[in-house]
């Protein structure tokens, strides 16, 4: 790891100043579970790290039945899991946090860090860049792409969005609040994630000097929700495919549904196809499976990840059934 400067501000304003004022680039340090490995691997080389740990206004989780949930940027997975309001009103958010199956990461990793963490693409992590270019050619299409995207992968980006929280946040129409040199702004979580089109772009909407300060989740209303992740190992592993579902039921019939897939595309992937397939149906194994198939109807798997199409279908199906059952 290269030498760097370490700053420990206490307000958002100071954070933004410290981020913009560093020669050689500054980066935010939240829980450090990702940024420190990026630095050790020489993928990130900030000249300054700006810690959020002492910024009080970035902390905490609050819930109001009328307005919904506010997650401070530095709230940890564990705080999310332990929060009774989250468990009661947003059980799927707790399910997603539970999936991050290492107590260490849950204790230190933060919710904003989960949205801002960089992709796990093994070419990117080995130093070939986010778009994994080698001798002028992209490595992923002809390389080992077993963990790469099956949707939204027409290039040049082939990685998958790593965030476990993002799909359910998108499905719940959550927003991120950002703070930067130009002040504060809000974006739907969906719009926070971007597919880079060239090597100047990255996978989210943060402008230089900007940070995520809060995540705002609307009051859920009378819905059922669930997340289902397909993971190979029980712990310390990433989902191979995931789906988040928010269901509005009228009796047995689906009045409205949001389906968002995770770990299948460079961004969290909403599926209007699945939503259409399920709307107006009563929830059954067959209807859920049809929705899963619809969600992947436009999948374009790469040479080694056809299997992910099936896993994503199953994730959608099981998330729908899990939501309908109201399992916590």
């Amino acid at each position, binding site marked *: *790891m*290269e*030498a760097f400067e370490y700053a420990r501000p206490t307000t958002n304003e100071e954070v933004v100043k410290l981020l913009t004022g560093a020669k050689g680039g500054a980066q935010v340090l939240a829980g450090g579970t990702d940024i420190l490995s990026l630095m050790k691997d*020489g993928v990130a080389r900030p000249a300054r790290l700006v810690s959020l740990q002492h910024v009080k206004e970035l902390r905490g989780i609050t819930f109001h039945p009328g307005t919904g949930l506010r997650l401070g940027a530095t709230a940890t997975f564990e705080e999310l899991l332990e929060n009774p309001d989250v468990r009661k009103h947003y059980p799927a958010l707790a399910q997603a946090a539970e999936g991050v199956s290492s107590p260490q990461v849950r204790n230190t990793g933060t919710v904003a860090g989960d949205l801002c963490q960089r992709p*796990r693409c*093994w*070419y990117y*992590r*080995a130093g*070939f860049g986010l778009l994994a270019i*080698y*001798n002028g*050619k992209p*490595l992923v299409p*002809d*390389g*080992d792409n*077993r963990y790469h995207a099956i949707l939204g992968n027409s290039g040049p980006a082939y990685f998958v969005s790593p965030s476990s929280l993002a799909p359910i946040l998108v499905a719940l129409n959550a927003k991120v609040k950002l703070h930067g040199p130009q002040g504060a702004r809000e974006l739907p979580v969906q719009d926070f994630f971007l597919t880079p089109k060239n090597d100047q772009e990255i996978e989210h909407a943060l402008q230089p000097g900007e940070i995520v300060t809060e995540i705002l989740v609307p009051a859920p209303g009378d819905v059922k929700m669930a997340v289902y992740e*397909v993971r*190979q*190992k*029980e*712990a*310390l*592993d990433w989902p*191979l495919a995931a789906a988040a579902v928010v269901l509005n039921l009228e009796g047995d019939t689906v009045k409205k549904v949001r389906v968002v897939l995770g770990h299948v595309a460079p961004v969290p992937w909403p599926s209007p196809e699945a939503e259409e397939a399920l709307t107006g149906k009563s929830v059954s194994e067959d209807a859920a499976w049809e929705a899963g198939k619809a969600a992947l109807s436009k999948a374009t798997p790469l040479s*080694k*990840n*056809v*299997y992910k199409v*099936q*896993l994503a279908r*199953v994730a959608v199906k099981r998330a729908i059934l899990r939501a309908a059952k109201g399992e916590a």
Partner: protein
Amino acid sequence: MAKCKYDWPEASDRRLIGKRINRIDGPTKSSGRAKYTYDINLPGLLVAKIYRSPYAHAKITAIDTSEAEKLPGVKTVRIIQGVGKEIQWAGDEIVAVAAVSEDIADDAVRKIKVEFEQLPHFVHEEDLQQAGDHAKEAGGEKGGDPDKAFSDPDVVISEGFYGIPTITHCCLEAHGNVAEWTGANLRTYSSTQNVSGLPGQIGQALREQGVNVPDNNIETICNYVGGGFGSKFSPDRWGIEVAKLAKAAGKPVKLMLDRNMEMEVAGARPSGYAQIKVAAKKDGTIVAWDSHSWGTGGPAGTTMPPLPYVLNIPNKITRHTSISTNTGPGRAWRAPNHPQAALLTMCALDDLAAKLNMDPVEFFSKNADLAGERAEVYRQELRKAAELIDWQKNWHPRGDKSAGTIKRGLGLSLHTWGGRGHNSNCNVTIHPDGSVEVTLGSQDLGTGTRTVIAVVAAETLGLPVEAIRVNIGDSKFPSSGASGGSTTVGGVSASTRRGSVDALQQLLAVVAPSLGVPADQLVAVDGHIQAKGDAAKKLTWKEACAKLQVKTLQVTGKNPGQCALGSSGVGGVQIADVSVDTETGLVKIHKMVAAQDCGLIIDLKTAESQCYGAMIMGITYALFEEKVMDRATGRMLNNNMEFYKLAGIGDIGELVVHMMTGPGYDERGTIGLGEPPVISPGAAISNAVANALGVRVPTLPITPDKVLAALEKGGAA
């Protein structure tokens, strides 16, 4: 048989041997007091890092280390492979740097500039057709008349492709050494499986490279090792380099491999693939075998695994192709070539049994005679393992026909290993104050070597285990063999037994006059020296030792030596019970059982622990492990603990170990156990998956993509 003086005590006389005894270094390890090579921090210590080739195959055309040398804190920069050298794998060592801190050493490495002429590389061997010039015929064998046997119209033939990829050893303590010169003497703190052997290897390499140091001036110390598995017998190039850096800098230097390099260059179990044809009569008698195997162990290729494995099939033809690849060189991995042989053989035979509609337990029991002298052992182990997994109740023919998407299956595998004790010398010392030491240049890889030595000495001297002080891990101690090939327990238990028996005999001779009983009528029991059959005539151990007055008693014990205390050759059967989610292709282990013999067991607990550890390692390579190489860059993609997946506690299921002991087993004396239980898990799990699905997933690891692909092709599930 006539009693020989060193013979193991009769079963009725064993107080400690064969019981479950806690490892004596457990508290030291679990409290963090155990010092590994990583923990050695000498005054003035420098840290070394290595510039490594980013290319899998390239010629070095220029090296510029000037910027690195200028960096404050950099003490020595040494070129390991200079201009003109051809690099054969990514990660190979080119320049070493020693600096006052790890950070500075890293910075210096980043400032080194090396130019290469890139050459074509080859890193994927699974598809033999693509190997071209990299493939070389590497022998084969013919026995009986395979052509005739296969063309018999009455035989049932099964054909298939099977494989097991290259995996890395993934030692949790990376390879590395600390080297310290004091005048003309070199001391190394090495993470090694070979304490007594290392100085000779280091000395020879240093002399060949112009550093004149006699072996006798070199001392290697290793008190604890964080895993070796066959990858730590040699000092390796980095172990020689660290000695040279230390000499050049005039300071001690530590050089431990980084995780990525541990994965890329310091461990590789060679792969094994094969196209196999097998035939049996309709009654299940196996008659013929035909295999064409191939694999890689890096630039040097591979040798043929012992095929067909365990069962000596009367008509057979084998052929092996060795493939050289530009990947980190292969190393011995726990039971070299046996996990490969087991997977290839036991899966092919299991497919044949399925084609014959035979229950595998019945099929393998029926053919056990082909295992020769151990046929009956295998039959007993098959029975035991089947009982432990409740085979009668849980087994079904190929393809779980029950409703639902979760399919369950059972699968088994057989294995064998030698495990004869290695050469070992030890000093057994009895001090006048009653303390006892056993001293030898062995090492404890975490297997329980220390404990075994203490148990044997304690049993022989009639003392509790805690009364024995075991000194190992220093090459200045009497030389004892490397820990590899399951040779350690056999070696150290035999030398310790002989030394302890002789030491006791000398002590008894000293004590005899004061008890007024002839020495040959005295025995050591329960911390006393007493007359046989007359417990009234006795001294406590301490009182007895006091008779030595100022003379410390020291005896050398040796293996091999008089009286056979060990032998060679074990069997073993494992059965896996798995379930497979046919929608996701995920495999979960419910339970695995092992029935394992290893002759006379010294410590039942550490023996069972060997089996548990081996089964966990086996589940890991069956379901998760493979070295993923990238075609374009020639580099390993999963050179970290994130993508190089290892089983966690939740992935393991229930493990049951049954050690075969008692009459028929104990008389064989001690036999090693490190290798055998790690051989079968891959095949047993693959067979269980095939039993669940009704279709074979041909290669390990059995990952969701492969399960789903196999199901696409068919399967009863």
